[in-house]
């Protein structure tokens, strides 16, 4: 028989109802052993959870109430039980996501509680030194003023760095070798010099030459120049991403270089540049903290003053919490812009 004929017969046969056990395929799908199916039932989970809780309440000894051998072995057993129980939930694809989230949070809480209870650390001392917020009573306005100065520095330097960056990027589009030499030197130099060094040079070295900038001016100049170099690179990338045909079309219509830049290139480049630019500005906001070294009265500086006067580092912790509160939303924003751009590109 010819191969093709055999094939046709084979397919014909395959289409017919198969003899033999009716659900041979289902037997593979249900191949989990009975005990496995049992441990994933809600009832089993509830009972075992009760066991774990009872273990925690009645079996786990007080710290110091038992010998180390008994203490450590019960803790290890408890850990094993907790991890097995939560692993059983988390590994189950059929469990709802919200339950998994709750179990994960509970797991973290339990581990933290174990660490808190059995690590032997003196938490009271830590709280007294670093989280002694009552000590800050009546002094919050100092941190608030500091935050005000920080934000002012950030906004002015942001404007400054965007102006510097845009100017440098525009000058680079002229492709003049001599000009480019200087612009590249500026960009390379300012991108390699640590912000702290730049600020210290401006603040402590320039006065020897007879130029005294105030601490605020100094910070703004340093941040504008330093981040201007990064901004220039972002703008350049944006400008270069505009198709050269756009420039040709604009110039062939008789538009001047400047008109082409303003009406054709920048409107297309700026939306591309906004996400990396916002990222730069977030880093810049963080770098305003360096200004505390040149005595600009911004958030970190004011917090350090409080730290000295209260002889307690809680103000530093408070300041870092304030930084987090301001920066986390901004970081999320950058992320969102980045995602939106990616979505638009695809």
């Amino acid at each position, binding site marked *: 028989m010819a191969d093709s004929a055999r094939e046709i017969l084979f397919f014909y046969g395959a289409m017919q109802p198969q003899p033999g056990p009716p659900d041979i395929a289902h037997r593979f799908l249900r191949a989990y052993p009975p005990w496995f199916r049992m441990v994933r039932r809600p009832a089993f989970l509830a009972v075992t959870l009760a066991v774990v809780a009872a273990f925690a309440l009645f079996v786990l000894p007080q710290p110091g109430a038992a010998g180390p051998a008994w203490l450590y072995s019960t803790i290890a057993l408890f850990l094993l039980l907790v991890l097995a129980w939560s692993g059983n939930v988390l590994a189950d694809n059929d469990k709802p996501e919200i339950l998994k989230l709750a179990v994960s949070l509970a797991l973290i809480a339990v581990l933290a509680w174990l660490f808190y209870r059995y690590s032997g650390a003196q938490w009271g001392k830590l709280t007294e030194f670093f989280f002694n917020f009552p000590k800050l009573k009546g002094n919050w306005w100092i941190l608030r003023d500091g935050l005000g100065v920080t934000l002012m520095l950030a906004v002015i330097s942001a404007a400054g760095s965007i102006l510097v960056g845009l100017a440098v990027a525009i000058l680079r589009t002229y492709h003049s070798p001599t000009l480019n030499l200087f612009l590249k030197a500026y960009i390379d130099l300012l991108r390699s010099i640590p912000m702290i060094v730049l600020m210290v040079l401006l603040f402590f070295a320039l006065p020897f030459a007879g130029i005294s900038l105030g601490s605020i001016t100094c910070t703004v100049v340093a941040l504008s120049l330093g981040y201007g170099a990064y901004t220039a690179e972002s703008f350049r990338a944006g400008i270069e991403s505009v*198709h050269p*045909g*756009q420039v*040709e*079309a*604009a*110039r*062939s*219509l*008789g*538009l*001047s270089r400047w*008109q082409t830049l303003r*009406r*054709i290139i920048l*409107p*297309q480049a700026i939306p591309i540049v906004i996400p990396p630019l916002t990222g730069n500005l977030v880093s810049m906001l963080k770098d305003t903290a360096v200004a505390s070294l040149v005595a600009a009265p911004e958030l970190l500086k004011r917090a350090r003053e409080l730290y000295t006067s209260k002889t307690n580092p809680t103000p530093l912790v408070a300041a870092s919490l304030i930084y987090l509160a301001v920066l986390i939303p901004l970081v999320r924003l950058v992320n969102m812009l980045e995602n939106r751009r990616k979505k638009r590109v695809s």
Partner: protein
Amino acid sequence: MKEPSASEKMIEVVDLHKRFKELHVLRGINTVITRSEVVAIMGPSGGGKSTFLRCLNRLEEPTSGHIYIEGVDIMTPYIDINKVRTEIGMVFQSFNLFPHLTAIENIKLAPAQVRGLSDREATERGMALLEKVGLTGKALCYPEQLSGGQQQRVAIARALAMQPQIMFFDEPTSALDPEMIGEVLDVMRTMAQEGMTMVIVSHEMGFIREAADRILFLADGVIVEEGSPEQIFKDSRHPRTQEFLRAIL
């Protein structure tokens, strides 16, 4: 061919050379294009057709030679090239519409910015041109919402909005799907009938045969042969031309 009078000469090219470093792309081109003439440039790829066209409005800087547009040498050092370019409309293979502007804004931009037309005048002119290319309903569309043929017609309207004396077409139909070529060629045909001076780099044989007054056959950076379409298509003299026509017909 009789020598055209000075007032009839629209473009005169004298000994035009263009080098890209080692590559000698244009090796001495001489030609005269008269008012209302439709000139098609043909030739093998890499022969310098596009470079030649782009040198004529100095989008590409020629290495040496002279180009006279209406008697003015545009290669003199202190000439305002933007002014010259306003008299020369250019249509590109890849349309090059401005993606951040709507069709009507694409057309309005140059008349408003360069010619100083008021927004209303520019809009009126733009709408009239959109009607001419048959796209009145698409005025507020962005380029990405238009088909290739529609984009190219907007690009033609954009070039015409400057009311140029001359139109250059750099392979205007090469990037189009076959069913869209006709609509673009129709617009170009109308322009030719209205007496526009046109220089077209194209291989649309049917269109060239019917609309072009003269064909320049460009190969290896020189004009190897020129003549009317019948003369070139039926009875070309130069072996390069014959070989090329055999390959594409």
